């Protein structure tokens, strides 16, 4: 069982009402709608796509400088829109996410096709300021907006056979031109153990920097698992499948010796392309030491007590 550590439990009273109120007003101006009561209206009055309403600020946060929004939205790995870091921003400009649907399948009591809003609306949105560590040895600090994955998964009522959760990205080479070349085995697939998926740090994110998720960062909905290398945090999700057996994952299929199923940030496990001991924080020149589990060891290490992490990398 996962224990929620004290330091996450930020009482609502600690969330200063003033900035929250300000945020809400900003949003209402932007969306041109009239919102409900404080924190009771996390989702903006539905227009074409998902819009962010009220959210609880800094529910989980770290004391590190947040990466420039411009950098976080212009330097991305999202091969569906091209393999260069600048490609996703350039090639996703016209990507439409209206009427987004997610197919839920496998070992759960509520399989089916869900509209994104129907799936997410019961839950309030939290801001989570997390480190993001790419396997390419660079890192950022990003203020995500999202919902604990556990909340969403529980609402789908997984059965006792659900030991893993698999995710799938949209496969549509017209809308995602990067998929016209078989650089990876499309659609992009990722997966977590049920314990990882249910861990309170794991979120389904629908926005960042106080705004709706930009296309290049995985609109309209993506996973964020802060203690794993970035490629585990799958973008533009259209499928969630509960399973008894470990799902295949895209980078693992592409290069099994380099990218394991777990892919936890681990400075001790060597990678043939990049030393994982150190990383370059975007905005800095020199590298800094990489932290075990990306600095979240206290929270997640117990998930791997019985696992040899050099074998299960």
């Amino acid at each position: 069982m996962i224990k929620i550590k004290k330091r996450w439990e930020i009482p609502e009273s600690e969330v200063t009402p003033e900035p929250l109120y300000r945020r809400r007003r900003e949003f209402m101006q932007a969306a041109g709608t009239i919102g409900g009561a404080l924190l009771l209206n996390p989702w903006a009055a539905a227009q074409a796509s998902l819009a962010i309403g009220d959210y609880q600020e800094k529910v989980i946060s770290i004391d590190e400088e947040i990466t420039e929004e411009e950098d976080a939205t212009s330097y991305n790995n999202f091969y569906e829109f091209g393999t260069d870091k600048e490609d996703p921003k350039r090639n996703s400009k016209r990507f439409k996410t209206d009427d987004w649907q997610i197919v839920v399948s496998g070992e759960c009591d509520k399989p089916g096709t869900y509209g994104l809003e129907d799936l997410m609306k019961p839950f309030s949105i939290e801001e989570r300021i997390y480190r993001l560590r790419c396997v390419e040895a660079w890192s950022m600090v990003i203020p995500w907006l999202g919902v604990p994955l556990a909340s969403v998964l529980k609402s789908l009522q997984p059965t006792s056979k659900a030991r893993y959760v698999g995710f799938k990205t949209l496969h549509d080479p017209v809308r995602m031109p990067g998929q016209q070349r078989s650089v990876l085995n499309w659609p992009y697939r990722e997966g977590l153990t049920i314990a990882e998926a249910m861990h309170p740090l794991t979120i389904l994110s629908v926005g960042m920097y106080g705004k709706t998720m930009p296309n290049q960062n995985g609109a309209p909905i993506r996973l964020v698992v802060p203690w794993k290398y970035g490629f585990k945090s799958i973008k533009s999700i259209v499928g969630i499948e509960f399973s008894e057996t470990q799902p295949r994952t895209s980078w693992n299929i592409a290069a099994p010796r380099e990218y394991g199923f777990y892919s936890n940030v681990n400075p001790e496990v060597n990678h043939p392309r990049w030393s994982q001991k150190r990383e370059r924080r975007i905005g800095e020149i020199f590298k800094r030491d990489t932290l075990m589990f990306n600095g979240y060891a206290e929270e997640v290490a117990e998930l791997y007590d019985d696992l040899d992490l050099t074998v299960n990398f």
Partner: protein
Amino acid sequence: MWLKSVWAKPLLHLLCLLPFTGLLWAAFNGGLGANPVEKLTHETGAWTLRLLLLTLSLSPLRQWTGQAAWIRFRRITGLYTFFYLSCHFLIWFVADHSLDPGAMIEDIVERPYITLGFSAFLLMIPLAATSNQFMIRKLGRKWKSLHQLVYLIILLAVLHFIWLVKADYLEPGIYAIIAVILLAHRVGPIKRIGIKSAPVVR
């Protein structure tokens, strides 16, 4: 003929310096994006490879066009190759490893693509050092065999690129094909296509 013009060499110098000045300019104007170090590493690496391929295509060009003058440019393009390679190497040593020799050696030993790139760099030092008239005369016949190391260098360089790519092999593939054509020209029957002229080293 413009190839033999007195302006040809100064123009070539300018062209070879263009990417460098472009990068310098971008560096001081925030034009290198979110990860300037990576951008500089990639750009200097790519220009090293392009100039190396250009250097290797001068002798085939001489044979295909019958213009011996192409060879006059070999020393210039060769030295600029070494210049961009030195920048490429220094960025890695300074920004990636903070000038720490231990970390540098570990990277060379543990990462095959660095092993290959670093070998190419080491092999290129004697070539750059012996590219002047004095050494050419002093080494005589040996000079030529020494400089045939460049064939090994291009192989190492292309493998370095292929090995460091994660999944998209298009770009290194294109360079690899060009390199193979240029190398095949030295050994295969392609060599006999076109007009031959006496080798000139200047």
